[in-house]
């Protein structure tokens, strides 16, 4: 999503934009999001994810963005990329500016039996049910009560399967209350301070044992319970996909509140490699709304550097986006991410001074 938004923003200024996606469709995770999004009008709030995806692709094409699908960027040397499209020969392409919007990948937790067929990422299950219209099983145990765990549980119910329980290691709900309330009204229990002890079955998941965590986070064996399930979904967090930024030589920082290792970037979303920007979950795990805004910011900043926007009009646009980003990060769910983003921006400034890039800050 952030890639499409960045592409649209940059192409509106007159810049020539090529969008490369390894998938058969553009839009990243949007294609499988069937719920209505949150935020404000400028975040397409109230509209279902897949509809936002269609809209953005249309907007991109209308604005002259060239879209290359089924194409993987397998190598990066500065702003030169090696691209391989399915069934064709590899080729090299150099761009003046590159915006990396590689998104995120799911984390996993390990427990005895986690390799049994039937244990899968929550996002993987979501792809199966919403994109391919296939139910992976009939009785699902969801591990994790963050927004992904809550939302995917609801979508599993919509697809016609049962969610036996949602298990959460923390003593509180990980995700937004409204998502949790929705799933509780459906009769699905959210069992906090619990984790999965093991998955059992012959060549596939047939049952799971859940157990309470005591005050020292040990497993309290007296509380073990067996649940008859055929699918165990892991919704234990996302981490930024940083293979390309790393290949390109971008420096990173570990920030737990942003999902793990994040490419260091400044207030223009530019990394420590000049000309390479990041946006969306690749720049830190946040929300769809922040992905849109960071995409807008990166697209605007890259176009400005190429001379397609005057310093003044770019400054006004960027400041407005930064204010919205700040608003989006207020509140109990965003405050840690706000701090983390500030740290990233500060570190970027320090590194640029060291690297003697001579970057001037916006007035």
């Amino acid at each position: 999503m952030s890639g499409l938004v960045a592409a649209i923003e940059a192409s509106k200024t007159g810049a020539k934009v090529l969008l490369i996606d390894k998938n058969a469709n553009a839009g990243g995770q949007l294609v499988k999001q069937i719920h209505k999004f949150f935020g404000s009008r400028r975040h397409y709030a109230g509209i279902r994810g897949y509809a936002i995806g269609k809209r953005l692709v249309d907007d991109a094409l209308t604005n002259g963005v060239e879209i290359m699908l089924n194409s993987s960027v397998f190598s990066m040397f500065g702003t030169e990329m090696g691209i391989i499209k399915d069934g064709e020969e590899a080729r090299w392409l150099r761009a003046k500016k590159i915006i990396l919007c590689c998104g995120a990948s799911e984390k996993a937790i390990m427990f005895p039996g986690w390799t049994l067929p039937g244990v899968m990422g929550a996002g993987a299950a979501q792809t199966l049910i919403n994109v391919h219209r296939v139910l992976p099983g009939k009785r699902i145990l969801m591990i994790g009560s963050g927004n992904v765990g809550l939302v995917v549980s609801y979508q599993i119910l919509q697809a016609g399967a049962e969610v036996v329980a949602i298990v959460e290691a923390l003593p509180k709900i990980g995700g937004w209350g409204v998502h949790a309330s929705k799933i509780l009204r459906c009769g699905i229990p959210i069992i906090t301070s619990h984790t999965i002890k093991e998955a059992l079955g012959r060549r596939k998941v047939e049952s799971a044992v859940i157990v309470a965590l005591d005050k020292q986070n040990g497993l309290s064996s007296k509380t073990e319970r067996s649940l008859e399930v055929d699918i165990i979904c892991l919704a234990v967090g996302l981490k930024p996909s940083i293979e390309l930024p790393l290949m390109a030589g971008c420096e990173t920082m570990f920030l737990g509140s942003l999902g793990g290792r994040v490419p260091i970037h400044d207030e223009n979303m530019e990394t420590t490699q000049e000309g390479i920007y990041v946006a969306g979950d690749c720049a830190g795990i946040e929300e769809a709304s922040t992905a849109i805004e960071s995409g807008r910011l990166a697209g605007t900043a890259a176009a400005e550097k190429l001379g397609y926007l005057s310093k003044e009009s770019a400054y006004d646009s960027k400041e407005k986006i930064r204010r919205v980003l700040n608003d989006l990060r207020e509140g109990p769910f965003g405050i840690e991410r706000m701090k983390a983003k500030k740290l990233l921006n500060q570190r970027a400034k320090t590194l640029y001074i060291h690297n003697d890039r001579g970057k001037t800050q916006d007035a």
Partner: protein
Amino acid sequence: MHRGISLTGSPSIQELEESPGFPSKRRLLKGPIAVIECVQEIPCDVCGLICPYNAIEVSTLKSLPKLIEEKCEGCGACIPLCPGQAIFLVNHNYSREKALISFPYEFTPLPEVNSMVEAVNRLGQVITKGSIVMILDRESFDHTVVISITVPKKLAQQVRGIKLHREE
């Protein structure tokens, strides 16, 4: 952060009564009124933008929605549009004995109008039987159906849905 919602996933009665989206008892007894059960600061202002009577105010992106009781006509336009499915309509005076509760529903198959269904509270527990009075499914709702059921008046502030209707 509030205790009920963040520990259990369901807002406590205290959290609801303290939130600006919850109507007063006085207004509740007057007739159909929106009940906004959104008690956490999350960046979202959709409801503030859609009320045709300007009865919902969301001053900043993270503000809790504020229900302006005197302006709310109980039209229910907000129910299908909240992405969190956190808005309901309660008509305490539907009949001498019953209140009418309207709520969002996104499952198939839909129950039949005039059928009796199991009505649930915020925790999904069946607490009474209800009769389906109306099922609204308009294109502008974008696949969020609004179901209205009658329940005993004394349960008007507890019933918030029906047990999931599954194929036989």
